[in-house]
């Protein structure tokens, strides 16, 4: 058997696998964003029970490893007769994971809108929906921008865990190439470098947004 060496075409394979990492990140952020948004609303609701249910959901998601969510949805559900393809299981798990964290981030943002804003909009006889729509959420959105972008970095990195159930994204592609070339150091440094290329600009963007928005709110 002739061993392949880690060359140009192998690197190309890594880059194409990076695409799946990006796809999974987008699924997780959009799916998790929608679910997380409603949980954040429930968490700040005036109904006590909605708040308790939302808080419990967040506590559970943040208290268990992403890997367990993945195992439950991939191996667990298949035993119960619901066989999900790896992409669906990975997408669903990352969505659940992201929703728990985004809900908590956004709860903090909604609650950091000054109380006077609620009172002022109430005195204008706005309904609760109008208050959210015109007064609270636009402000909360701005506050949430830096930490949401920062969380996107966590999601990009955590998609690597889906490689454990065999979903071929960047980390899994690295393992496959390593099995073919036996040059682990080079292969995984290249994999790490590709993750860095995606994550570092996002981290910097988050930091820049934080500085910018912070500066503005103190003017």
């Amino acid at each position, binding site marked *: 058997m002739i061993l392949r060496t880690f060359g140009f075409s192998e690197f190309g394979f890594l880059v194409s696998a990076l695409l799946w990492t990006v796809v999974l990140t987008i699924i997780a952020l959009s799916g998790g964003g929608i679910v997380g948004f409603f949980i954040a609303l429930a968490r700040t609701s005036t109904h006590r029970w909605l708040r308790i249910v939302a808080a419990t959901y*967040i*506590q*559970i998601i*943040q*208290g*268990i*490893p*992403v*890997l*367990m*969510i993945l*195992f*439950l949805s991939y*191996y*667990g*559900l*298949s*035993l*119960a*007769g*619901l066989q999900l393809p790896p992409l669906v299981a990975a997408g669903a798990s990352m969505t659940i994971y992201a929703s728990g*964290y985004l809900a*908590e*981030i956004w709860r903090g943002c909604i609650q950091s809108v000054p109380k006077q804003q609620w009172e002022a909009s109430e005195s204008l006889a706005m309904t609760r929906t109008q208050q959210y729509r015109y007064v609270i959420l636009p402000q909360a959105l701005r506050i949430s921008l*830096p*930490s949401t*972008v*920062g*969380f996107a*970095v*966590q999601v990009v*990195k*955590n998609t*690597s*865990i889906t*490689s*454990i159930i065999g979903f071929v994204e960047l*980390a899994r592609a*690295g*393992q496959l190439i*390593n099995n073919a070339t036996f*040059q*682990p*150091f080079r292969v*995984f*440094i290249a*994999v*790490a470098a590709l*993750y*860095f290329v995606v*994550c*570092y600009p996002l*981290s910097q963007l*988050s*930091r820049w947004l*934080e500085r910018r928005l912070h500066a503005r709110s103190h003017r």
Partner: protein
Amino acid sequence: MSYTFQFGVIAQYQNEILAGIWMTIKLSVASIILGCACGIVLASVRSMKPGIGRILVDAYVEIIRNTPFLVQLFIVYFGMPGLGIRVSAVTAALIGMTINLAAYSTEIIRAGIESIHKSQIEAGEALGFTRLQIYRHVIIMPAIAKVYPALCSQFVLMMLASSVCSAISTNELAASAAFVESQSFRSFEVYIVVTLIYLALALALRGVLAMIGLWLFGRRVARRTAVALPEVQT
């Protein structure tokens, strides 16, 4: 979809699961102590005057924080033998966790140090403190007290992330779960039970850290620690 749960089967494998829990606890505690110690040292270097040390620490923190923990584990476990360093899976897991946690705690403690006002140090000097006393009592301890809840959240996240170490065949809790699953074929039950164990471990760790906070910094910090959720590092 009708499905009958059979949790009784899992009870037969309690020894494997207990061994996994014990390994997860050992790895977590060891990496928390080592990672936090490294974090204090690196954050101190980071807060000194600009220079080569500061650039190196910054580079280390940025590289670790912008690459996945799993890939870091792969580099330690599969990559290091290529450089002539062969380590067991458990050692590799511990090295990986320490390297990862050190970077995050450096960043958190640095934020704490930066929040210490210069006048505090001047006040310490005026009281005739030595430099070491100022460093310990005026800079490091108050800095850690300020960021203690965030630091603890990072510790909890690290404990949960240790489940990924099963990918390099470290025999911790997630690996025990996979083993029991392969023996009993009751994957749904196994993973539900193990998920609940992780949840209990996370709550217990938070409780223990709050007690340590009470002992080190008093009631207010401990309360914030006990209720804080893992903060997402940006």
